[in-house]
């Protein structure tokens, strides 16, 4: 195995962390913006799916199906090449803007589709009787949503929201393909600077970073769920 050591040196794993970790900033920034915008558009899509307008419902469902069938990397490149060339048609020049913008657009589109399903299923899990009871004791429809429906739906939605976030974080690792220098992008730069040696160690470091992040998100959402599920027995019993 002595030859193996020539190619694999575990110390590279540890020494690459200080170089990689600062670039999590970019990863978080891109993911955070996609989550904020994606949740917002997801809410709109969900209300289209739950609303009475047939056309809106069809459009929203069609959008979700298409997005579900599209690999992230294909969507990423479609946005990266497609958005500027569409903009060209309107005389807007977008070829020089930051790649991060394209990444955020891509994952906003994707996260909106995920969130629309999370919100829809959470809303549908709450019985109609809850709303009717709230209105019957004199709450306005808005108050009924805010004080009765939303808190219950939130508990149902939280684990799925957490899973969506983990998925987004992982799909986001593809942003390096259009030149974003996040943790993965930086890792590839380090490897290139090493003349492609010790790539494995750097990748293992990357895997460890993502693994820990995912576990933290999962644990965090578990805690949140506990915090918000005060009335959960009642939900289960109904």
């Amino acid at each position: 195995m002595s030859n193996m050591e020539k190619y694999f040196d575990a110390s590279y794993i540890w020494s690459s962390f200080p170089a990689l970790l600062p670039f999590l900033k970019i990863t978080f920034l891109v993911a955070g913006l996609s989550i904020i915008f994606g949740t917002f558009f997801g809410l709109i899509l969900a209300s289209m799916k739950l609303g009475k307008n047939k056309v809106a419902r069809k459009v929203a469902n069609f959008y979700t199906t298409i997005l579900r069938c599209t690999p992230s990397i294909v969507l990423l490149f479609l946005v990266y090449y497609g958005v500027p060339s569409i903009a060209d048609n309107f005389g807007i020049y977008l070829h020089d803007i930051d790649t991060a913008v394209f990444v955020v657009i891509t994952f906003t589109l994707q996260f909106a589709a995920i969130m629309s399903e999370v919100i829809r299923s959470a809303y549908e899990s709450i019985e109609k009787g809850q709303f009717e009871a709230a209105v019957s004791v004199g709450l306005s429809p808005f108050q009924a949503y805010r004080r009765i429906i939303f808190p219950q739906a939130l508990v149902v939605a939280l684990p799925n929201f957490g899973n969506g976030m983990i998925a987004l974080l992982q799909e986001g690792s593809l942003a390096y393909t259009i030149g974003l220098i996040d943790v993965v992008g930086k890792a590839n730069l380090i490897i290139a600077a090493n003349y492609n040696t010790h790539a494995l160690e750097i990748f293992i470091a990357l895997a460890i970073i993502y693994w820990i992040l995912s576990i933290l998100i999962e644990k965090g959402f578990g805690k949140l769920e506990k915090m918000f599920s005060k009335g959960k027995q009642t939900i289960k019993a109904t």
Partner: protein
Amino acid sequence: MSDGLNYKFLVDTFFVALSGVPITLFVTAVALLVALPLGFLLALTRINQIPILNTFSQVYVSFVRGTPIIIQIFIVYASVPLILTAITEKYNWNIKIYDINPIWYAFIVFSFSTTAILIEVFRSALSTVSKGQLEAAQAVGLTNFQAYRRIVIPQALVVALPNICTATVNLIKATSLGYAMSLQEITLKAKVAANVGYNYVEAYLDIFLVYIILCSLVEYGFKLYEKRLRKYQYVSS
């Protein structure tokens, strides 16, 4: 650049992208063939709390779910040649490691990740079949194996099917990352065609279309199969 789409290229490349479908499906099929039985067996170790295997499955699932597939690909693509080199040098075999067809790497990576996903799918499906079903089967004289094969698995399968469908669609989508192993699948083929004249928008539109058609067909197929399996679940009054 704003001279619109190159329609001839769009049509031609659609067929180039389409020609990658067999490889995509081949990798998908092999990964499923490995992952379905293996995932099921490991799910059983989770359900029955078999000491060491249970913990192993837990860590395995956590790793796969916690790391991006592209990084799993990087790791396999970087580590397998190292390991093989070490082995071949030790035994003085004369194998050219860098001649290995990339499809083997694809088999390894996608079987590895799909197995973990299916462990979770089967675990949750098996836990929906009540213990009474197994007990009743044992009580009428079926062996454990017969009870699983004839009573528990058919019921768990119905529950698992929508999730197996999702896993399959995700697997097909994930094979688009085969470019990192120079796997000649849909995405890579169309991209290479686009390199000549910088027709990237057209190429990615074609790839986009092929995946939508492919995944819609798979989803439709699963729905049909599910309907057939579900025949015993009439809406009870």
